[in-house]
């Protein structure tokens, strides 16, 4: 069966596709950072909770994990929306084909979320909470596994014919040679950013006075080590992923496709820079170059998606309705949200500086 015959037609989009692709990449970048942070932190917390029972790292991470997950999920919503608007014909299709797993994610995530709260509560009561964090970690890794299956299946119409043998929504994309390399790549990225998260939280906690400077330095060092070694391993995992791609896509990123190659190179350079600064314990610079690497890799990913779909589809071909006033609505909502969020964060941070008020008096109290 000709795979092209299976691809649903694209519904028209409200504005020029570049807007939507731009929003997709921007919001996805944030999602990646938060997702790497929460998954990596969960893994590190699990490892440390198991290997070092009284370790402060899991407690520190545990406090942040629920909020990190909230932000990960929130920042997952936006790129999922824009991906559906541009690539819905592919993404809805792959979601239906693996419907059981896709819908199951909701329950997996609810469970993981409550387990993270359970873990944080456990640590607060000075208990180990290993079961909570290990279970949450497993569920989060499973979530990533399902997502990678979906996004790779989405790009492979030639594999969609498997649906005709398995229509009950339980088909995955296990036969795709890029699946496990991609998962490895994402896992290492998670561990890296998880390490950075630990380091960042340790520094902040020292600043707030909730842990001692020594403990903070030790945790920061540990976090940067996690980052260093996983990013070093990434230097092997990355090429492994690259070479697992179909031949013409591999060569595209090795010179044939100008933009793709440039982005990949730049991203790799950022990664190497981040490695360098991690080695030198320069946390802020490590974070900056990591963020840069992620941003560039989001670009690489976009080029990869375009090239995967090129035989069947181009987002540039979707007719646009030219309805720009809703876009203005969106900009307005973003501005409003941004402004209010900045205000709220300012109120919070200022307030903390003034040691806050635990009473109902409304004036500064003992805190």
């Amino acid at each position, binding site marked *: 069966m000709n795979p092209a015959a299976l691809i649903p037609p694209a519904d028209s989009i*409200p504005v020029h596709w570049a807007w939507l692709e731009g929003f997709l990449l921007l919001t996805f970048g944030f999602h990646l950072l938060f997702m790497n942070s929460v998954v990596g932190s969960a893994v590190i917390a699990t490892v440390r909770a198991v290997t070092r029972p009284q370790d402060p790292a899991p407690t520190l991470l545990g406090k942040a994990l629920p909020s990190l997950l909230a932000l990960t999920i929130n920042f997952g919503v936006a790129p999922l929306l824009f991906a559906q608007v541009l690539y819905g014909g592919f993404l*809805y299709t792959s979601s239906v084909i693996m*419907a059981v797993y896709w819908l199951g994610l909701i329950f997996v995530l609810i469970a993981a*979320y409550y387990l993270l709260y359970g873990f944080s509560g456990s640590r607060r009561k000075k208990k180990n909470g290993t079961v909570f964090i290990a279970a949450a970690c497993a569920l989060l890794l499973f979530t990533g596994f399902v997502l990678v299956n979906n996004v790779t299946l989405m790009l492979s119409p030639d594999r969609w014919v498997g649906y005709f043998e398995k229509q009950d*929504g339980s088909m995955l994309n296990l036969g795709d040679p890029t699946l496990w390399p991609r998962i490895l790549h994402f896992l290492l990225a998670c561990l890296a950013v998880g390490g950075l998260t630990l380091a960042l939280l340790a520094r902040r906690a020292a600043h707030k006075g909730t842990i001692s400077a020594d403990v903070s330095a030790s945790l920061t060092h540990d976090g940067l080590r996690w980052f260093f070694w996983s990013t070093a391993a990434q230097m092997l995992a990355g090429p492994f992923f690259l070479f697992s791609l179909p031949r013409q896509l591999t060569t595209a990123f090795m010179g044939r496709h100008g933009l793709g190659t440039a982005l990949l190179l730049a991203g790799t350079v950022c990664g190497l820079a981040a490695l360098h600064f991690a080695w030198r314990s320069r946390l802020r610079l490590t974070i900056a170059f990591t963020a840069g690497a992620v941003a560039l890799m989001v670009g690489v990913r976009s080029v990869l998606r375009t090239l995967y779909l090129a035989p069947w589809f181009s987002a540039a071909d979707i007719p646009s309705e030219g309805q720009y006033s809703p876009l203005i609505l969106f900009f307005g909502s*973003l501005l409003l949200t941004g402004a*209010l969020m900045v205000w709220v964060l300012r*109120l919070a941070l200022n*307030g903390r500086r003034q040691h806050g*008020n635990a009473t109902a008096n409304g004036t500064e109290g003992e805190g």
Partner: protein
Amino acid sequence: MEYPVWWTPFLSGGLVIAIIAIVHVFIAHFAVGGGFYLVLTEMKAVREKSDHILDHVRSHTRFFLLTTMVAGGLTGVGIWFTISVLSPTVTSTLTHSFAFGWAAEWAFFLGEIAALLVYHYYFDSMPRKAHIKVGWVYAFFAFMSLVVINGIITVMLTPGKWAQTHLFWDGFFNVSFWPSLSLRFALCLMFAGLFAFVTAIRIPHEETRERMVRRAAMWVGLPFAAAALSGIWYLLILPDPQQSMVMERSTQTPHLVQAFIPLGIVILVLSLAIAWFRPLSVRRPLVWLVLALGLAQIGVFEWVREAGRRPYLLYGHTYSSSIRVEDVPRVLSEGILKTARWTHIKEITEDNVLEAGKEIYKLQCMTCHGITGPMLSILDKTEKFSVYGMDSQLDGQGKLRLHMPPFLGTVEERRALAAYIVTGLHGRTDETAPPAIRTLQTAIPSFDRETAPYVLLAWSTRGMHSVVEDGALNLAPAGSDLRCQLVRRDSTPEIITSGVTITYRPEDGHGPQGTFAANDDMRAHEALNVAVTPYPQPDTFNPYPVYIVEARDEATGALLAVTKTVVAASGEVACNRCHGGQWAVEDMSGISKATQNDIFAVHDKIQGTDFTAQAAAGEVIRCQSCHDGNSDIPEFSAAIHGWHASYLTGRDADACNGCHPSAPDGATQSFRGIHNMMGLTCTNCHGHMEDHAIGLLRNEIEQERYAARALMEPLKPQQAASAAEIPPREAWTQLPHCSTCHDFMQSPPPDPSAFGQWTASSADLFSNGHDYMAAMMCQACHGATHAVYMADNAWGGMERDNIQPLQYQQMAGPVGGANNCGVCHTRELDMSESAHHPIPQ
């Protein structure tokens, strides 16, 4: 149609969405109202300088965070995931048409999350005033997220101008936007009160506890009036098809609509009870109960909204089967298998009918009907149907009862689907053993042509006559009209209308007996409404009992003439093909209790009657007691044909054979006279089902019984370009006129049609007609309708229905035919000079 379909035999998609969505909206409305509750309560704490109240706000915030952020937020995403998988088509329409609405919604969620995280985690490490500001920011973002999603949900039910313009703002600010927002926000505030109970009843400080519990009850009570009024506003603002679906036509929503306000009142009362009864052991279960009722209430509202939208997912734009209205013409002409993308069967062959049916089921039915499962299981819903019945149900689907989309596909595909459901899933076929027709002997009375002084011609006016007086169902009461003409044989014979007593009695002794009465206008004797039934003996079917008719001198009692006639009466009315159950008598006739119960249940469901209960109480339901032509209700023939015509379209006489005892392989085979032998079918005279029904319905409309309009609307005539071309006809009095085909000059054409040429009144009916001399009645010589001489009777061969021709002229055929004028005339005559009527040679 464009996407693959998830095969879910064990549950219905609607149930999955219902569970996830109702849980989500319950929590989400709390997330909005609760935001206002938290910040207003914190302000109260500051105003009263109460640390106890502040403690309550703090603990309620934690509860709020754990409930709304996790379960609330993720079930919202869950709805999105679920609809993406169950209807990618509609999800795609919504995400594409309202992309930046969804995007703005996301932005507000982001603000909500940030504000709530700060509100919770910095509860005690900010100045109180600053913290309150953060609370207001949260409440604002929560409210804005309600506003945005409200626009998108309401456009699905009342798209208004968006359906044509596809402009974002036309869709967003649709006609039900404001009442929906008003209702939802009122519910938000009420639910804030309900959830406040959870933590308020556990406040340790007694005075604060009682105050906060009472306050929570106020939060439930004060917005209630606004909620009730908004609900009424919402109902009133709905445009017509949606409004009538919600209020009347749906079998679910009218009850739910009625439940909404009473449920609210119960919630109010319980809330007051929680405030009143102080022990925690009483309060806790009451709080659980009131939360469950709150969930039920929002569930009722959402169910009404969703069910009111049927048969669409996006009103007027996309059906529940995810087929877009604009694609319907293509699907109808090419078929669903060819137009759907994800099918590997494109053509139905003899070998793949069931498999093709399964594909079609998956494409059009699966989204709402699992095969098994607790809701709308297709096995439950189709238990009663034969393949024919299932096919007919699909034929009529979405035409008169509009909660389901019509079946979209070719007739062949529809049949394949019916076969899959009934044969593939239920394991039944329509094959049955042939009916156990008995051979009935008929002794022809003697007649001496040389000496007999009289000829007695007697007949039942209706050769095809259904009788259904089965248990609680009286659909067609027994009552045959018998007529006879006694002729004194002479060179110019004389019809005797006085001085004679003519009687009738059943030949085998089972059945009514009586005396004919003279009717001088008809120049005949008649016995009207004789209650001959198809079951002369209990549990025995005989549709063709023979009656002996004897004419005696009134004065002397001397027997003047004897003859016999069949008085046809059959109970072979095959309601069971669609309404389930088996035949009641000898597997050939009669409507069994199971079939009746289904007919009553369906009539109750659709028309709001109470037949099921009445029948159970022993009453007899007589259709014509309401369908009598004297009220707004269509008279019986128009009603029954008008309704069922939508379910039996595009057919020939097989539509008729399903209900009338005329099937050529059936138990009665009522259509058995010369017309049948010439190869005519019901439709030659009566027209096809749709056309037949339209004639009756047009007459209803002329009689100002306008309910017929709704019945007529879906019907497409087969024999005319439009319904307007079909002349109205009154049942039983305006019937096909013989002269349409028979001009007495030449034989009628081989495939004639008498449809649309009705008798002006009952005076012109074949059964009331006379010859040119106004002497002999048509039926005297030609026999009963549908069994016009010569007739071949399935039970009694060539004898049973041709008794008098065989008796008087030893030849089946019209009495006097083939130059047998001598039956009545005692002189030589030439048939071609007949004064009765010209006879083509």
